[in-house]
């Protein structure tokens, strides 16, 4: 909090590519400030401007506590900015995946995935096809009757993703969703997420603190400074194929280096 005045006056970093301008933004944040509580609460974000275009996979990358999750909640409409503007396309169907699977332990997998449709007034019978389709996307159609505690961590996270997808969202928001999973499970979920995004033409905002994950997944990375957070660099990732070959390429390594440098500059500022 003490350095809140000094970080605002930092010179712009070298690579600041604007969001693609040819399409209207699905979600746009302009000059957003956010404080928790009233008055002198903790300032999480300052002068944050960010927009995500249709079909984009945007990662928000930054150190812990830099306000990435807050930015995601502003994009979801769950929080209102202290000042500045948040613009969401009207009637934007939004799915949200939390850091933890956040399932209802008392409800079966089916009932958990049904929840968003149930809240919209659909009966189990009406929602059945959509729920089974959602579970199919994440490869869990055969455990619909199981309870969350009977599943592994990775499977629970898949259920959580199915729940976000069941409303056929246009915008999918993920808040460090795979951070608690082991490396292999995480890699597999990363790949599944990309496949689903491609198949459904989703617009994705993905919060992470892993440079490698961000570079592998994103079409664009917004690098955040330490708190109060704002975007200090934007890295575009051009790669037609996201596969093992990409992961092992010199191009990938160069992008990771470049992103790491931007991240380090943001943390020292």
């Amino acid at each position, binding site marked *: 909090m003490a350095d809140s005045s000094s970080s605002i006056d930092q010179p712009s970093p070298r690579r600041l590519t604007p969001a693609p301008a040819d399409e209207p933004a699905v979600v746009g944040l302009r000059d957003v400030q956010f404080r928790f509580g009233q008055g002198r609460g903790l300032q999480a974000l300052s002068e944050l401007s960010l927009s995500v275009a249709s079909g984009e996979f945007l990662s928000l990358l930054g150190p812990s506590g830099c306000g990435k999750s807050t930015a995601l909640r502003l994009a979801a409409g769950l929080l209102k900015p202290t000042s500045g503007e948040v613009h969401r396309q009207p009637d934007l169907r939004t799915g949200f995946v939390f850091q933890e699977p956040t399932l209802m*332990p008392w409800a079966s997998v089916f009932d958990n995935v049904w929840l968003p449709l149930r*809240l919209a007034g659909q009966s189990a019978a009406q929602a059945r096809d959509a729920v089974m389709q959602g579970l199919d996307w994440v490869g869990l159609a055969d455990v619909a009757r199981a309870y969350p505690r009977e599943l592994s961590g990775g499977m629970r996270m898949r259920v959580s993703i199915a729940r976000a997808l069941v409303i056929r969202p246009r915008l999918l928001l993920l808040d460090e969703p795979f951070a608690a999973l082991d490396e292999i499970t995480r890699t597999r979920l990363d790949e599944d997420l990309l496949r689903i995004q491609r198949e459904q033409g989703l617009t994705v905002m993905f919060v992470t603190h892993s440079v490698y994950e961000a570079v592998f997944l994103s079409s664009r990375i917004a690098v955040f400074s330490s708190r109060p957070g704002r975007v200090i660099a934007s890295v575009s990732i051009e790669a037609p194929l996201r596969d093992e070959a990409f992961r092992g390429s010199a191009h990938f390594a160069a992008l990771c280096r470049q992103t790491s440098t931007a991240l380090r500059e943001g943390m020292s500022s």
Partner: protein
Amino acid sequence: MNRLPGWLAPVLVVIGVLLLWEGWVVWREVPHYILPAPSRVLATLWADGASLMQSLFYTLQVTVAALALAVLGGVALAVLFALSRRVEQALFPIAIVMQVTPILAVAPLILIYVDSTTAALVLCTFIVAFFPILASTVIGLRSADPHLRELFELHGASPGQRLRLLLVPSALPYFLSGLKIAGGLALIGAVGAEFAAGAAGKQTGLASRILEASFRIEIPKMFAALMLVSLLGIAIYVLFDLLSRWLLGRWHDSETPEP
């Protein structure tokens, strides 16, 4: 040893204790007005069965009526507290006063103010059982996962949906543990308040039987009535434990073995 069912050991211990007790009384020729043998207690239970059962039924009625009121009142007030911190701040001190004042100290006053002895006993028992249900349900309603709350908000849940689909299931394990405590306390309250009332009136419970028998130095009958009080307490506990298992068995960690 590991193949034996879990209930066998405690049952064997109880049978063993009863046999030792019986043997001691017979061997030392302890007079029954000092310590009756279990066999004599059982015989008394059989002989005085009709009147003891009536008393058991009366105590059971008082306990159940008070518990039902405590559940209704405690849950209703807990929902109110969960909806408004201000209401909680205003009313919680009263709930605490009700909880910390020993019921035996208040019972004589209540017995004076309330005409019907039965109603007075129910009121005393209610006061004892009310607080655990209120306190545990308030915590339970507040314990809902904050991220699930956000999810409900994101998908535009109505207040009714949030209560039914999120808050109530989240509160259920807490409520049930409060209910187990309240069940035991209610029986203590019912018996204690009846002691304060003294043996009087047409309809009386097990406490009056114990008082009566002690005036007449009928020790075996005191033991018989005491045994019925214990059995009633055990029955209440087992009932709520089964209820808890049935409601939470599939999903809550407290009721499921490690996978």
